[in-house]
């Protein structure tokens, strides 16, 4: 069965995938409205937006109001295409919107899962190739640039990878929920370890495990939609990781808290 490889993005670009999700929905429905295969629109829209964000993000730091407004409008466009699709195409049905918003992992054909597997393999390979410089550029942008790492190209390349992954995930859990599947395992892994490659493995493991467990759960409980189950498991994994991290840091935390308290007392006493 189709299994999306969870190459999560543990870096501060979670909102990029949110934005890409919106674009994926509109792209898919625009393609449907034009009578093209929805996946063409899906990947075209996510890749286009990824490049756009990468290029713009390099020049100016667009603020949240601008990003939010643009993507709210893009979603509005998506509803517009949805109406065109449902009213003009004879095969159109209202379920298309729900499928692309919330995914339909059970609706994937064998051919679709083969395509998904190939795309996932290419993405993983590309990520492995750029992994080391990307990590460098992410952790310390300025130093990496000074050391001759092509920061811009790597940034745009990574966003394209995120875009393609978003297009993949949109078919499984839907445009709205892919953010969770990219953010929750990545966030959980970062809670558990600071080491990058171990973290990547954990993130991938959590994403795959929550997909499998979610699919099995929703098979056992027919009224439970697979997307909700997958996201529920992923969220639980994140909460679990947070609890483990907290329990682990309690002893260390106690010490640093008392130290902080002592510092504060010292400061207030001095002033």
């Amino acid at each position, binding site marked *: 069965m189709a299994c999306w490889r969870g190459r999560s993005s543990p870096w501060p670009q*979670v909102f990029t995938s949110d934005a890409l999700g919106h674009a994926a929905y509109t792209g898919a429905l625009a393609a449907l409205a034009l009578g093209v295969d929805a996946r063409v629109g899906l990947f075209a829209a996510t890749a286009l937006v990824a490049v756009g964000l990468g290029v713009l993000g390099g020049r100016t730091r667009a603020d949240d109001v601008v990003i939010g407004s643009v993507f709210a409008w893009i979603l*509005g466009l998506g*509803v517009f295409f949805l109406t065109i699709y449902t009213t003009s195409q004879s095969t159109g049905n209202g379920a298309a919107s729900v499928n692309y*918003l919330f995914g339909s992992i059970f609706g994937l054909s064998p051919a679709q899962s083969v395509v998904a597997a190939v795309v996932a393999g290419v993405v993983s390979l590309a990520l492995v190739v750029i992994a080391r410089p990307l990590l460098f550029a992410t952790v310390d942008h300025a130093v990496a640039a000074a050391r001759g790492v092509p920061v811009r190209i790597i940034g745009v390349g990574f966003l394209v990878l995120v875009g393609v992954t978003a297009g993949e995930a949109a078919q499984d859990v839907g445009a709205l929920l892919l953010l*969770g599947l990219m953010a929750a395992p990545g966030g959980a892994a970062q809670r558990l370890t600071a080491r990058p490659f171990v973290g990547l493995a954990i993130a991938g493991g959590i994403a795959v495990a929550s997909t499998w467990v979610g699919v099995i759960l929703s098979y056992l409980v027919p009224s439970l939609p697979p997307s909700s189950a997958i996201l529920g498991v992923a*969220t639980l994994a*994140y909460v679990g990781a947070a609890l483990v991290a907290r329990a682990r840091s309690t002893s260390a935390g106690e010490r640093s808290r008392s130290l902080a308290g002592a510092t504060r007392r010292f400061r207030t006493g001095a002033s």
Partner: protein
Amino acid sequence: MSATTAAGGWSWNVVTDVHQLFAYPFMVNAFLAGTIVAVAAAVVGWFMVLRRQTFAGHTLALIGFPGAAGATLVGISAAAGYFGFAILGALVVAATRASGTAYRGFSEESAVVGTVQAFALAAGFLFVALYKGFLNGVNSLLFGTFLGITVGQVWALLLVAVVALIVLGLIGRPLLFASVDPDVAAARGVQVRLLGVLFLVLLGVAVAEASQITGSLLVFALLVMPAAAAQRFTPRPVAGLVLSVVIAVTVTWLGLVVAYYSPYPMGFYITTFAFAVYLASFVVRYLVDRHGSAPARALHARVGT
């Protein structure tokens, strides 16, 4: 969605068109509800944009979705679910903010927000799936609808909006102070944190109101875009608030009229019109900055915009 077919269609005779528009009680209700929501969202949104809390607003809107779907599932009105979940969500956001130095870097914060948002949507989808035969209801919960608004709902919206605006009127001046310069405000004895919590609750209320017209996913159209455009047009608070309300109400009315006469959904029109105004604010600002009068330039130089 939006299965209204106007009896006569658009005729370019504005008087008869308007007359025809208001001949249906549901259209009158839609206009009343839309106006109330637009005013509340524009005013609260102005403060939200000023305080840079747009993603909090977005998160609250997504939390409202399972509220509305869950309320429909257990058989109470969707409005109760929107208000309940959005206000509860606001309190939770306020609690996590208040619990001190939770900011361990942006990536941590955004992973939490992303997970919460996706989980809220997943829960909403679960409720929708449990409530069978609700497939088109998803689209109206997410993208808004103006059909089937009852007189009772209009009164509820009005009551909540009036209470919210009165509270905002009472805390308006200190809130403005606390938003523009929290440190100085705190030093002058303003209850910055209390104001922050109160404002988040008001934001939850405004988001819940806006969701009922624009749907959970498109609240930005009424909450953010008019306010952001207004702040680009003028830095003065009162003028900005008035302008924000004018833009939001105009956009809502235009959206309702056009959606009534066309087969396409209202959410699309409201976001498109609001986005057009927002884009126009950039253009106008650019032109003013280029060819602006000397006093205007001096003013901008003084307020530092």
